């Protein structure tokens, strides 16, 4: 049979695929500046992929065509964006 199941930690590629840029992510440039300076969150965009991402969407459109357009899974439609603490906007004239 052609099914191979491995636990998460035993597949380095799959680990890297997830840990590097998914979950709670702090901007890369900040990660560098984190070394040794005081930091306070000024802006947090929280995006929660809705629980029904693919399936609900698939129901609505019919499954056809989804495969050739994988970016649908990331589309803004199923994401909820919460601006937690917006940065004070700069005044412009």
């Amino acid at each position, binding site marked *: *049979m*052609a*099914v*191979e*199941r*491995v*636990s*998460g*930690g035993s*597949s*380095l590629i*799959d*680990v*890297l695929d*997830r*840990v*590097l*840029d*998914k*979950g*709670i*992510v*702090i*901007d890369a440039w*900040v990660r*560098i*500046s*984190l*070394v*040794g*300076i*005081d*930091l*306070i*969150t*000024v*802006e*947090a*965009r*929280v*995006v*929660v*992929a809705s*629980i029904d*991402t*693919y*399936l609900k969407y*698939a129901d609505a459109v019919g499954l*056809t065509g*989804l*495969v*050739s357009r*994988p970016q*649908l*899974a990331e589309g803004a439609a199923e*994401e909820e964006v*919460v601006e*937690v*603490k917006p*940065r004070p906007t700069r005044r412009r004239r």
Partner: protein
Amino acid sequence: MLDAAPHPVAQKAEPSGRAQSEGRYVYGVIESRMPVTFGKSSIGGVNEDVYTVHYGDITAVVSRTPVFIFDPTRDNALAHEHVIESVMKNYTIIPMSFGTVFRTDDDIREVLKSIYTSLKDVLKQMTGKLEFGLKVTWDRDRIIEELKREHEEIHRFHQELTRKHLQSTYFARMQLGRMIDKALAELAANYVREIYDGLRSVCVASRDNKPIGDKMIMNAAFLIQKEREAEFDAAVNRVAQKFGERLNFKYTGPWPPYNFVNIRLKLERGNAG
């Protein structure tokens, strides 16, 4: 400046050596009012206790570390994942991406405080759920040979081509290539749809990531209700069986919901001080 030494601990370049070794590596966020410990972490080549930093009823899972930019080496990535796995045994964890280091516990509390509502919401939505990854590959060359034999249009064209004189074959071959690509894409799309159909009833959600390389036709993540893990397992096997030798299924997990939580934080230099 990023290509730092593989053993950050051995580095003592900074004059303020003591302050440099007092950072906190953050693995993720869980729900708990009480302090919890999770054994040791070997991230950065050290062996430090994994403990919690609280803000109300949510808490960050951390360990002490030099303030350092971590390279995602094999050891570091696996050490990160290892901590996550031990937390997952008893808690729903919202994972932090690799290499996030804060300078003090207060910095961590500040972040927890500022995104508290969102974290609570995400934790609530993810409680009792696990992620599984599923990658499906095929033997592309073998499928192409099959198409040449069995796909009516391609078969006819291929036959004709092998009889033709050399001067006309260049463009004809291009055309054949395009026909094959199109047929492959259609076939892959059909297979992927069938796979999703076989799994949709046992998962809460799924996410379609971009396949890697030309042998992979599906690179998906599934969110599963914890108590339905066995059902999902059975469903994957059932679907795989249906395709027999044509497709290879590789599935991984359980993972925390990496593919279903996407929280982007931007930090800025504090102006207090």
